[in-house]
């Protein structure tokens, strides 16, 4: 490759925005020294600008027509285009059903549902603070609230604490304060600084924050704090 070919290549790289700093410096040096190169650069710039202008005008004209004739697929979303693939069924109805189920469950919880354990004539009730309410069932129920009888049903005990058919333990009904049993979500944040040497000789500091989330019950939390002497 002779010198002029190399300069021609550099000119093209310049027009395409691909010149490195060194190449830019080299081209600038040569341009100052060589009037022929200056003329060549001007000529290429002129042609490039004209080509860009012409091409953009063509595609812009076509683009305006394209807006009048959108892709059919996008326009009506109908089955005008079929594809022989197995598609996932559209489960649009799941969201409302799930939302209704959530509302129903939270509604029950919000009413301070009375839980009647199997094989007990006097059901225990979980009230605020996890205390047992010894009053008769009828007196415990506020006006308009309904008793939820879980006798002979798979209760939340089945899924969360025990096996089906197992006699429920007092823990299942909140005899032990709920605060001691319900795991608390703990977050622990660490900050680390990492130094990365850059190509320019500088060292860039990157601050990395890591947040770990875990859950632990109150006795576990106490034990952890005690082992740390806190």
């Amino acid at each position, binding site marked *: 490759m002779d010198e002029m070919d190399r300069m*021609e290549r550099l000119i093209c790289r310049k027009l395409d925005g691909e010149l490195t700093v060194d190449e830019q410096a080299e081209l600038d040096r040569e341009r100052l020294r060589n009037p022929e190169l200056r003329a060549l650069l001007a000529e290429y710039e002129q*042609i490039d600008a004209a080509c860009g202008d012409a*091409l953009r005008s*063509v595609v812009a004209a076509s683009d305006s*027509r394209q807006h009048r004739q959108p892709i059919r697929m996008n326009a009506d979303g109908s089955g005008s285009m079929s594809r022989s*693939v197995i598609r996932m069924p559209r489960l649009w109805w799941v969201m409302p059903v799930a939302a209704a189920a959530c509302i129903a469950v939270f509604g029950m919880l919000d009413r301070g549902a009375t839980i009647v354990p199997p094989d007990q004539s006097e059901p225990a009730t979980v009230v605020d603070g996890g205390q047992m309410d010894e009053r008769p069932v009828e007196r415990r129920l506020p006006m308009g609230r309904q008793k939820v009888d879980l006798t002979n049903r798979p209760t939340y005990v089945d899924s969360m604490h025990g096996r089906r058919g197992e006699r429920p333990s007092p823990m299942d009904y909140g005899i032990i304060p709920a605060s001691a049993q319900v795991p608390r979500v703990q977050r622990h944040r660490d900050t680390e600084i990492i130094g990365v040497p850059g190509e320019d000789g500088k060292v860039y500091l990157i601050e990395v924050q890591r947040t770990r989330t875990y859950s632990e019950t109150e006795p576990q939390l106490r034990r952890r704090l005690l082992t740390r002497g806190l």
Partner: protein
Amino acid sequence: MTLAVKEVDPEQPVVEAVLQGDRYAFGELVSRHSDWVRAVIFGVLGDQDRIDDVLQQVWTTFWEQIDKLRDPARWRPWLYRLARNAAVDAGREVTRDRKATSALGEQLAVHRNGQSARHDAGDQRGVVLEAIDALPDIYREPFVLRHLQEWSYREIADVMDLPVDTVETRLVRARRQLRDMLRDKVQV
């Protein structure tokens, strides 16, 4: 210490949704990428009047055949090939039609000559477009992509599935030929 940077294609989830048959994702892909597909079609076909028809056909084929795409990460080169092939086929159809209807072909030739005359009379844009149209395909396609999309050599190489050096060489040669054709005809 070295840092490994993994390039993530932001369109990957969209393409995978399209693979699952998601029409909305497909619509999104169409709206984001029609510009460069149009540039590819024009680069091959050189006929602005047919760009929209071919574009429609390209996206239809994309939707119908995307399950044949083996590597979803390489959806861009695949789309490029679809666009290119569709444009080449459309070009063949035009040639065939012109041969079949000679009378119409003559009229078109007269029309084209008229256009050329107007170009000679000072329509610089037409002259430039004819020069671009006269470039060999392998030079015209990257040149059009570069000018319409302002893509880097790397981006053009990725889509055309070529080495970066090859793209650069083709662009240099395209400019050299255009310079020969347009010398003393272009003024900015």
